[in-house]
């Protein structure tokens, strides 16, 4: 690992040591964040998969009813029956903070409170299969919304996990070793300087003594 391009001075050493401490703490925190995010993510994604299987089966069933309705009623009558929906849905979104990821939570609001308002037609001229189809779709709706909520949460969390993982790896494999190496390099350099100063002083002392007293070693 490359040593950073810094001057081997005492000040630089203190700075680097401080940075190393921060990097280590950041690394630990980010690692914890990653692990917790991963745990939550696995929970959500398991639920997501199970719900998707259920919703897909339910939609298939509803579509079967719809197909039957389509075959027993003529096209125009069906279009007329479904042309003017009486029910109207809107969503209220609240956000929940999970490890700094804001995941959405949907709350459905309907224009009319009556559950039967999903049938936008009179029952006289339509097939019972249409009622079945619309009824089963309306049963699926809460699951569909929950599915959207889960999938969005999973996508957002996956992006955040990826980001956090990259940061953890960068700190663990690049930043921290780099700081450690540089600190080692500066320490060695400073020690070396100290040793050379000591030897120089000893040598000078010898020379001075020899001059003053004509000592022979």
């Amino acid at each position, binding site marked *: 690992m490359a040593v950073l391009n810094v001057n081997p001075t005492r000040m630089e050493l203190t700075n680097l040591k401080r940075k190393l401490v921060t990097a280590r703490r950041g690394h630990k925190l980010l690692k914890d964040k990653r692990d917790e995010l991963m745990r939550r993510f696995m929970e959500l*994604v398991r639920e997501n998969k199970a719900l998707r299987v259920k919703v897909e089966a339910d939609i298939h069933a509803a579509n079967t009813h719809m197909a039957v309705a389509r075959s027993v009623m003529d096209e125009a009558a069906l279009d007329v029956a479904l042309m003017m929906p009486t*029910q109207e849905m809107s969503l209220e979104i609240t956000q929940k903070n999970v490890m700094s990821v804001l995941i959405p939570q949907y709350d459905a609001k309907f224009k009319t409170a009556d559950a039967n308002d999903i049938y936008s037609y009179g029952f006289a001229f339509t097939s019972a299969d249409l009622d079945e189809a619309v009824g089963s779709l309306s049963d699926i709706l809460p699951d569909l919304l929950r599915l959207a909520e889960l999938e969005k949460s999973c996508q957002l969390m996956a992006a955040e996990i990826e980001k956090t993982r990259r940061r953890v790896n960068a700190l663990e494999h690049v930043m921290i070793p780099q700081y450690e190496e540089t600190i080692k390099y500066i320490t060695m350099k400073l020690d070396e300087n100290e040793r050379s100063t000591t030897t120089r002083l000893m040598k000078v002392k010898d020379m001075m003594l020899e001059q003053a007293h004509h000592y022979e070693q």
Partner: protein
Amino acid sequence: MYKVAVIGDADSIYGFASLGLQIFPCVDPHEAANTLRHLAQEDYAVIYITEALASQIPQQIERYHSQPIPAVVPIPGVKGNTGIGMAVVSKTVEQAVGSDILK
């Protein structure tokens, strides 16, 4: 207040209209991509799109994965389940974990 939209071929999505969802029937992938873009700019929080169409415009859908709003969710249409929806979930797992461990 946000709204919910459904994009897909008319046969697959007609039923949703009676529940109070806004439906946008179309069969052409280009048109679907345009509709999706317009809806994402307006106040639609959830956009359901049939798998048949979703499989033809994966990039346009993927763009919204990192944004909090809207959620674009593939649903099976009348032609049956193509497995695209599950593939999207698996892809998310792959992104987060590195490989799909829930197979």
